[in-house]
């Protein structure tokens, strides 16, 4: 967002800590369009651990954490884990250009929250914000700001949730 004007300044180092919600909440269901114009619902993935990430292409920390989300997605491919990246108020062309700039293929579903209604339901204040939802559909962890999601500590927490 303002990275161009602060190009010389370092952004905060991406950490790995996730905050356990003191009172776990049931994850509100939603249905959104994905890149190929199909629609998917959160409830379709009940039984998997979900990393629900709210992001936008213009958001510098979102860009920085995206490669670690893809690595995590690849590492747990075929297991009871899925990344869902919920884009805010952008379209397929913007995502396509973003993926090209990033230099990696994003293989997890990217969903379009075109009016930010899903982010409001999840009380997202700023981007990026990420929730980890367990196999029963309960929000267990939250991260505000960018993270290195393929850090061993995050992997360990997700593995624990997959084993529950």
């Amino acid at each position: 967002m303002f990275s161009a004007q602060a190009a010389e300044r370092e952004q905060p180092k991406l950490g790995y800590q996730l905050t356990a919600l003191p009172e776990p909440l049931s994850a509100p269901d939603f249905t959104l369009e994905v890149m190929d114009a199909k629609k998917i619902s959160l409830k379709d993935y009940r039984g998997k651990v979900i990393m629900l990430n709210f992001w936008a292409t213009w958001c510098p920390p979102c860009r920085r954490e995206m490669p670690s989300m893809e690595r995590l997605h690849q590492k747990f491919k075929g297991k009871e884990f899925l990344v869902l990246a919920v884009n805010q108020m952008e379209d397929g062309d913007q995502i396509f250009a973003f993926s090209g700039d990033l230099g990696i293929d994003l293989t997890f579903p990217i969903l379009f929250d075109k009016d930010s209604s899903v982010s409001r339901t999840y009380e997202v204040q700023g981007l990026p914000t990420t929730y980890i939802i367990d196999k029963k559909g309960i929000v267990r962890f939250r991260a505000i700001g960018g993270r290195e999601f393929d850090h061993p500590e995050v992997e360990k927490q997700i593995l624990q949730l997959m084993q529950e």
Partner: protein
Amino acid sequence: MPTKINSLLLKIICLSLLNTPVQAAEVTIHKNDASGLLTWTSKDNGFSIELIQLNPDFIRAVYGKRDFSVDEVERIAGYCVFGSIIQNTSQQQLSYRVADWRFVDKNRKAYPVKTKAQWLAEWRKAGITFAWTLLPESGNFGIGDWQQGFTTIQINRNEIFDFIYTWTLDGEKNQGTIENMSCAPAAL
């Protein structure tokens, strides 16, 4: 070149203003060699805040490509806008409320910082749906949480001011001050 700022006078003003313990924060100032724009960074007691000058043309570019009218873009660009990065550097829970933050003008008069909620209320009336880019008006940060967004101050562009911010760490309210701040110039 890093500069350390610590003024007893302003601390007294801060105390009377918010009745909150004042922290002796270390403030560093960085000048971007290419643009000349300044960044102030203050780190103290579990909280880090960085305020980056943003010039009006940059703000026009950010909002001009969204569903904002030309008049609305100009209105935002008329504010003194900073890119802000705030961070919980502690191992405890931390919270902040922009509504508690103030800027103090040359006449030592304190004014509230305009919040995201106030901006969004105005934008909604103008039919604008975009709701991002501004620093959230409040936050509850766990370990490692951080956030960034624009902070807007309504002051004459050439006027020097002090910026007073607060945060709550493990239930205790803290306050810090960055002195002698300035807006980005109208043109680079």
